[in-house]
């Protein structure tokens, strides 16, 4: 019986230990858009009539857009068009309005100007 209790305790501890390791935080949109994740980086794409917005969160921390260069690439009219996005307030990047049909793929990349580190992901429009 002692063994059973010890085993149960070990299992419980094991569950406690593993839980925080796999938790990455934000996985849901914060601005009404759609999200895609890559590792612990969350990209949110918000399509508005006036323009397209990209928000980037990395390890639950907003990524300061001011220090980054960002691009968005998508298939338009039979070819892939790449559009530079402008750093905006906080962790937001702004681009022109896009008409995205279901099935369209939108690839985004943000590059830290100082470290050259890259964060990338691809949205599939549903």
């Amino acid at each position: 019986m002692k063994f059973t209790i010890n085993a149960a305790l070990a299992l419980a501890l094991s569950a406690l230990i593993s839980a925080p390791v796999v938790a990455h935080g934000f996985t849901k949109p914060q601005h009404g858009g759609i999200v895609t994740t890559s590792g612990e980086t969350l990209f949110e794409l918000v399509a508005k009539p006036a323009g397209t917005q990209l928000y980037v969160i990395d390890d639950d921390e907003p990524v300061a857009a001011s220090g980054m260069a960002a691009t968005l690439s998508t298939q338009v009219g039979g070819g892939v068009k790449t559009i530079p996005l402008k750093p905006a307030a906080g962790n937001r990047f702004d681009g022109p309005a896009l008409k995205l049909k279901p099935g369209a793929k939108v690839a985004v990349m943000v590059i830290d100007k100082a470290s050259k580190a890259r964060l990338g992901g691809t949205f599939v429009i549903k």
Partner: protein
Amino acid sequence: MPSLKSILIAGLLTGLSCEAASAHAVWFAQRSRQTALIYGVGADDLDAVKRFSFIEKMTGYDADYQPMPATPRIAGPIVLVDTDQQPTLLSVVFFNGVWSRVDGEFVKGGRDEHPDATLAEKNYKYSVSIQGPLSKPIPALADQVLQIVPAGPIPEQHGANLTYRVLYKGKPVAGAKVINDLINDPDQKPQTSSADGTVTFPVRNQGLNVIQAVYNGPTDDAKKYDHIESTATLSFTLAHEPE
């Protein structure tokens, strides 16, 4: 009944095939969130920086498989890949030199330098990495002399079968030695690609999968090496469940 000579030749060829299939390779993988070029085999992530000059060409491809610049960059002890856009594919051509087997050991240099070598070969390594969702089948890429392409959609879950086609100079090739998991099972017995260049494996990992093919093509300088060994990898990732 097979003759002793044919048994010996078959045994020798089997030995050569197995050796070739276990050769080092290059592939792309994430390191600290960045895309890196790895040189190694199994869990051995070897010194790619020392071999930086072996990288002959690196290319990114967009969703339409149009090329985009991709630049290798030394970052401390590893080689990272810089692109200005998120690529759908990355590829590399890596020249690993000419090697000869002398007294059972591989040494650098060709038969011209090692006239007593029992084997001399020129080594090229190729790799294609799928970095984003595919809109259409991957084509033969011009600089990939040996290339593995998925012959159907990549499943979402590991365990499902996936057929691959091995291309040599853009055409399906029979006789390539293919293994399913260069990282976690590098010593597995290779399958041989069939007449249409295909092999089928269950997708092994809900994570990074690196498939490897090895094929020996004819020499272009018989005085220096007996054949040109091409090693190709195809890497892709199956997403894990949301956390």
